[in-house]
């Protein structure tokens, strides 16, 4: 997949990403960053770029009074500056058992949704770090929630990519709990990107968590990952399907239920899409058949700043 692997993660193919490095990840929302950056900050004033003046009102900081304008007009105006700050992006990755679907074997996750997620998330951390923005990670897994606070330091990024590479999918989906946990940890506005297959019952916990971020002014992005083999049942006479998140086994003939299954899956995808869009999320659905670089490109083109 890559001819030149990074030192920290073999999921990072910098050579393939050279074309994408010019496209910086940005957001149109006003965010709250720790340092100065190229993103529009929510706060106005300070030493940012002048954008406008307005009449003075009591209580305004007298340091921002436009004295030359007052001298010319005799009326007090206050100069307004737009601060620019850095972006803080939190990647929430679903590491439930269902993300392992498509893997070659129990110990080889190649072809699985998790592998695709690792490539995609590694690429995103790389691109975000190139823009001097902070990126962190929250992993939703049954065995425990993992949280790495957003940071921009190269060392921090390597640690992050290392953690991504070491992700293991197992257990039931804990996406709702992970979002709640991240919401409590994150104080400043930023970008929340959830990468999941959203095979979670019920979906309401996830939507509620997304709405909380959205209510705080975060930009929420939902990357809905689908494996092609999930959309249709495999061809064959009979299968014993085993659940990947602890569900009981099922013996069946795919031919008997193929149509109904496809209907149910389509209904589920439509439900996820409607729910996330209703929660104010930027909804993106990708198939693992789509190369992750294409997905990154499709994602960045409308956002490049």
């Amino acid at each position: 997949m890559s001819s030149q692997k990074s030192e920290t993660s073999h999921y990072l193919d910098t050579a393939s990403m050279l074309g994408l490095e010019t496209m910086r990840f940005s957001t149109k929302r006003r965010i709250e960053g720790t340092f100065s950056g190229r993103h529009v900050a929510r706060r106005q004033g300070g030493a940012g770029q002048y954008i406008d003046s307005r009449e003075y009102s009591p209580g305004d900081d007298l340091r921002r009074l436009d004295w030359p304008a007052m001298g010319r007009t005799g009326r007090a105006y206050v100069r307004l500056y737009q601060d620019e700050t850095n972006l803080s992006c939190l990647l929430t990755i679903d590491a439930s058992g269902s993300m392992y679907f498509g893997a070659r074997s129990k110990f080889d996750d190649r072809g699985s949704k998790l592998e695709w997620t690792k490539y995609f998330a590694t690429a995103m951390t790389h691109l975000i770090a190139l823009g001097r923005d902070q990126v962190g990670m929250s992993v939703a897994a049954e065995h425990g929630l993992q949280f790495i606070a957003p940071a921009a330091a190269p060392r921090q990024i390597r640690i992050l990519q290392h953690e991504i590479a070491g992700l293991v999918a197992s257990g039931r989906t804990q996406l709702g709990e992970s979002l709640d946990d991240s919401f409590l940890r994150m104080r400043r506005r930023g970008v929340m990107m959830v990468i999941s297959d959203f095979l979670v019952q019920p979906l309401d916990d996830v939507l509620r968590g997304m709405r909380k971020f959205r209510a705080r002014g975060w930009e929420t992005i939902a990357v809905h990952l689908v494996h092609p083999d999930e959309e249709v049942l495999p061809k064959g006479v009979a299968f014993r399907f085993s659940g990947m998140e602890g569900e009981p086994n099922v013996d069946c003939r795919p031919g008997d239920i193929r149509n109904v299954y496809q209907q149910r899956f389509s209904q589920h995808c439509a439900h996820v899409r409607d729910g996330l869009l209703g929660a104010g999320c930027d909804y993106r659905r990708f198939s693992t058949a789509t190369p992750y670089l294409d997905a990154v490109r499709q994602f960045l083109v409308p956002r490049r700043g």
Partner: protein
Amino acid sequence: MSFLNPLAILIGAVGLSLPLVVHWLTKPRPTPLPLSTIWFVHEAIRQRRSRHRLRDLLVLLLRMLAIALIALAIARPMMRRDVVIDTSNSQINVARVLIVDVSQSMAAGRGGRQPLERARSIADKYISSDQDLVVGVVFAAARPEVVFQQLSSNFSALRQSIRNVATLPQSADAMAAINQAAVWLGETDDQMKRELVVISDFQRSDWGAVRFDALPSDTKIQLESVALTGPDNLAVLAVRTPDRISAGEPFQCEVELGNFSALERPIRCRLKLGQLNKTIEKTLPPGQSTVTFPVEIASTGWQSGSVELDSAADDLPADDIRPLAIEVSPAAKVILLSGQNPQARPSSSYYLTRAIQQISGDLADARMSPQKFSLDRARSADALVLDHPGRLERGLLKRLADLMRRGTGMIYFVSELADGVNLSGLQQELGAGMQMPVRFVPPARGRPRRDLAIAEISRRERPFEVFGDALDLALAPLRFGGGLATELTDQSLQDRILGSLTDQSAWLTMTDCGGGRLAIVNADLEQSNLAVQPAFLPLVGELVGSVLPAGGSGSETTCGLPMVRLLPSDISIEDDIVARPDEDWPTIASGYGSWEASGSGMVWNWAAPPERGVYEAVLDGRPRFKVAVTTPASESDLSSLQSGSLIAQGQSKDRIGFRDTGDQRENKDRWWNWLLVACVLGLVCEICTLRIFRT
């Protein structure tokens, strides 16, 4: 219900597990596969599982049903009541009677095999030396014949007698055979098991009225049918000739033919009678038909021959020929016995004399006075006409009665009271041999008998039937007077009153008296206008014809039934008379009966003529009497009874079984066809089920 191939049931039972095994073997082994969206599969299966389970169950049941039906079809079920006698149980004392039908219909064969041959093989199975068994064998013919006079364990002799038995040209007296079996079975010990086996074609005419009531109530009855399927038989059923055939007088010989098949059949019917040989070709429709041969024989005496039917081979060739014997008589001689003056004109005797001369052609010797009664002249006459004879002496009445017993016909014109007395005396002489329907009494005072018209007549009987549609026109102008009033006798045969007058008195009666016949006309021709009407001559002619002694087809008897025939009156017991077959027919080893003298003359008594043919009584090398021995026409109709009607005649349904071992068996047991149809329908249902539940 029983099965022709019971082994197929066992194989079918094993085969029933085949769909289960196939279902288990072809049940797909599921491939393990992890699936992230398994709860969609759960939901889909919840929605579809009951439907698919129903489909699988239906398909499995239909397949099992198909195999069961195929097994049943191969097993060939027979739904009819079949066997009630177990021949394999050797532990029980059994008294068994076998009735084997040997009537002529058992000779009907197709493809070279007769029902009697099948009957032999069936009977052989019921005579088994393995059982503690006594057996009686009855051959059912016109008279039942037994092998031994009691039940026997001499099985070899019984088998040999069955092997040697042949069909007889007779019908079977089924009730007589069953009664014989009832006697044997009734004499057996109560500890013994009683069984009756009847092997026959169960021809409708022989077995239609049979009942098993005479048998002991615990008798098991096994009916073994060897009947043919769809019998296809042509036969000569009867030959009819006039009662009296006169030499030189043309007559019609009617031959009744039977076509007991469903199709028209071309035939050629040939009449051979003495030197006469005539043939008629015709297409015979199903049912009974009549062909008529116009015949005229110039010479008098007995004539014999046959009627033969030439056609393609039918089931029973034996009934395609029928022997025939007729007597050709000279012209009838009639004598008027009257006390009137022959010169008195007009008088009733004058009218009758003229009429008799016209009828017999004898112009000189037609009249005789009671006072000058000659027995020889009277014996030479075929019929006597009595008109105004006056009061007859007892001796004369006795002679007249004797003549009537021997076959001389008599017409009595009752015109006065003396005639009533004469008839009463004649009845006393004849005794029970004469039963007049009416008694003649003097007319009531003040009610003179004149201008009486005919009120009722029997149109279809002689002498009226010859008038046909002109009868009313001929009789309407007739007015009668004289005669006597009549009263019905206690044992009156009212159907012998052929005509009555408007005063309710009998006008014409007909009475059989021994070998002769008496016609009584209750009217005085002098006081009636009958003698001057056009109907007079034909009416007298028909009256004479109706009282003449019968000949022609009267000399026919049936095989197997007793024959008693009165020989001509001039033969006495001292004559050296010989009986023999006619030249065209074979001799019979058992003889031709015996001669016996009776009050009426010599009688030919033959207890049971065994073979058909023409047999004659010969005196001085000249045949004096011939008789045609024929087979009963009912034997030609080979249609057999259905099992249901026979079983219904048994007192208990559990004790009677009917098994068809004839060639009908193959055709009647059609259940297997329907089972195969049901099997195909089951497979169609399976396809429909799969289409309805298709995914």
